[in-house]
């Protein structure tokens, strides 16, 4: 059952991803991206990382996409069609990407991953504990750093977006 769900997710994600980078309508592009992100959240659900899935949905599906939609609306006319890059460039990019995919997959498939069979569930409490622990393997320092970074980014975003008119 999960298997089929995965395949459905996977194919739809790939399809939407391709659509997102090819669509000539800005807004649609953003919405396609939203589907991809939701699909990723779905995968997180499938592997029992519920908390992560939730974050994915809230931060990306909620925050980032909304932000993007707003910016698109601010700087763009909905009807406007995006200009495409030169065909030659697109072909080159496609070839490079294809080769890249080929190489990567080849490497991945020739490597024998030492997979550990498990069906553990990770609770939010575990994550929170780890995140705030300052013992061995604790992430409290990066946690603090990231909060400062977020603050700085927030202020920076406000200042930049405000422009000269302070």
């Amino acid at each position, binding site marked *: *059952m999960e*298997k089929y769900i*995965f395949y459905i997710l996977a194919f739809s*994600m*790939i399809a939407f*991803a391709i659509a*997102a*980078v*090819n669509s000539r309508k*800005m807004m649609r*592009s*953003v919405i396609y*991206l939203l589907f991809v*992100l939701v699909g*990723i959240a779905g*995968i997180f659900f499938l*592997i029992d*990382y519920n908390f*992560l899935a939730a974050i*994915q949905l809230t*931060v*990306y599906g909620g925050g*980032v996409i909304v932000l*993007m939609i*707003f910016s*698109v609306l*601010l*700087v763009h006319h909905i009807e406007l069609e*995006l*200009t495409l*890059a030169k065909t030659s460039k*697109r072909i080159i*990019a*496609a070839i*490079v*990407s294809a080769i*890249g*995919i080929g190489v*990567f997959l080849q490497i*991945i*498939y020739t490597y024998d*991953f*030492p*997979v550990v069979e*498990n069906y553990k569930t*990770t609770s939010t409490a*575990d*994550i929170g504990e780890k*995140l705030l622990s300052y013992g061995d*393997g604790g992430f409290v320092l*990066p946690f603090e750093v*990231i909060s400062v970074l*977020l603050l700085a*980014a*927030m202020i*920076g*975003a*406000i200042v*930049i*977006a405000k422009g000269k008119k302070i």
Partner: protein
Amino acid sequence: MIAGISIYEILTLTTLLFFIGVYGFITRKNLISILISVELIMNASVVNFVIINKYLYPDVLQGVLFSIFIIAVAAAETALAIAIIINLYRQIGSVEVDATETMKY
């Protein structure tokens, strides 16, 4: 773990997403579109972190935690990028890459 799905399938998926992002990054001309591609790339790598954590080292949480950090940084980055785009739009009235070539040479 997803029953019936090996790590290879998932990695294939992320690889494809990654390179679709790369393709988009290179070909799109609009800054917001580029941002969208970056999000794709970023998400592909996030999934990789998580998947490898889950499949190979289920007893630890490093991958998950890093993903959380990546998501946080990505969010911050998106916010900043959008701020810059809006500012740029105000300054030059365009968000096309071709219009922002003053750093050339």
